């Protein structure tokens, strides 16, 4: 009874906070100072058609590096926690799992390459269309998940996944450091020519950085999924 009362009180307090926020809200008719700077300077300074990407990769590139680091830590912790039981069991636990249905098997043959292509498209075109490294990486990982659903005993090379992950992380940092020497600062995208606005090879280093982030995020999510899948019976 008291527990229920506390929950109710907590919900009421949360509702009051939100009501206060809502009553003090008024829609802006024009962009604020920071927003206006981004909207006016992105096209000529960064050369990216998608302003959101320009902010994420260049203006706030350091924050993105932090996000990628957090994701990397999560994947590492999952690997450490779940990877222990795998080594000693090895292949001995290959018990018979029920067959995944014909529909899923046949459908995944068609869908997995298409989903992988869509993921690559999303992160390569991050500077032109909505989306980018994180979204593309998640889409790539969902293709891996579909493969795991179809055949839970399928073996994925941990080595390959970690090599992809480390190399893209290293190159991401390397491009960031190159920016200090060749352009205005850490993670500056103008180490490559900015190119024609709106074309695929434009916006300097943004497509390269976002593709690396996409590969890294995809590899991290995949390694988590593969770790989940290999811990049966522990």
């Amino acid at each position: 009874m008291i527990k229920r009362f506390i929950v109710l009180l907590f919900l009421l307090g949360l509702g009051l906070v939100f009501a206060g926020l809502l009553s003090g809200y008024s829609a802006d008719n024009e962009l604020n100072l920071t927003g206006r700077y981004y909207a006016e300077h992105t096209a000529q300074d960064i050369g990216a058609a998608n302003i959101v990407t320009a902010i994420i990769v260049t203006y706030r590139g350091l924050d993105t590096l932090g996000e990628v680091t957090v994701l990397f830590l999560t994947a590492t912790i999952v690997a450490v926690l779940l990877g222990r039981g795998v080594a000693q069991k090895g292949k001995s636990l290959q018990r018979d799992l029920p067959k995944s249905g014909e529909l899923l098997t046949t459908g995944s043959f068609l869908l997995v390459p298409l989903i992988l292509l869509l993921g690559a498209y999303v992160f390569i075109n991050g500077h032109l269309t909505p989306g980018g490294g994180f979204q593309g990486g998640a889409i790539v990982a969902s293709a891996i998940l579909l493969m795991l659903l179809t055949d839970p005993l399928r073996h994925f090379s941990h080595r390959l996944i970690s090599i992809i992950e480390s190399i893209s992380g290293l190159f991401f940092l390397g491009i960031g450091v190159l920016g200090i020497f060749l352009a205005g600062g850490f993670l500056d995208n103008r180490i490559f020519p900015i190119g024609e606005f709106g074309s695929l090879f434009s916006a300097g280093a943004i497509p390269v950085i976002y593709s690396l982030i996409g590969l890294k995020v995809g590899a991290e999510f995949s390694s988590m999924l593969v770790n989940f899948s290999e811990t049966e019976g522990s």
Partner: protein
Amino acid sequence: MIDLMLLVTIFFAIAMIGAALVAIRVKQISIAMLAAGLVSLLASVMFLFFAAPDVAMTEAAIGSGLTTFLFFFVLGRVRGDQRD
């Protein structure tokens, strides 16, 4: 125009609350997972209405796609172990 926007927002908000209540209340776990995925899907459509396609893509890919699949994956694992 603004009124139409408001109506759409209210509709999606009510649908999201409904789906969330279904996710909490329903007894079968699989239906609860689907309802939780539906909340994310409706949220991503709402982000699209608010002209934030980047956020909408993230929500659709991670919240509605990957998480729902992962729940089903783990559910299958748990049930498979119970049968042993």
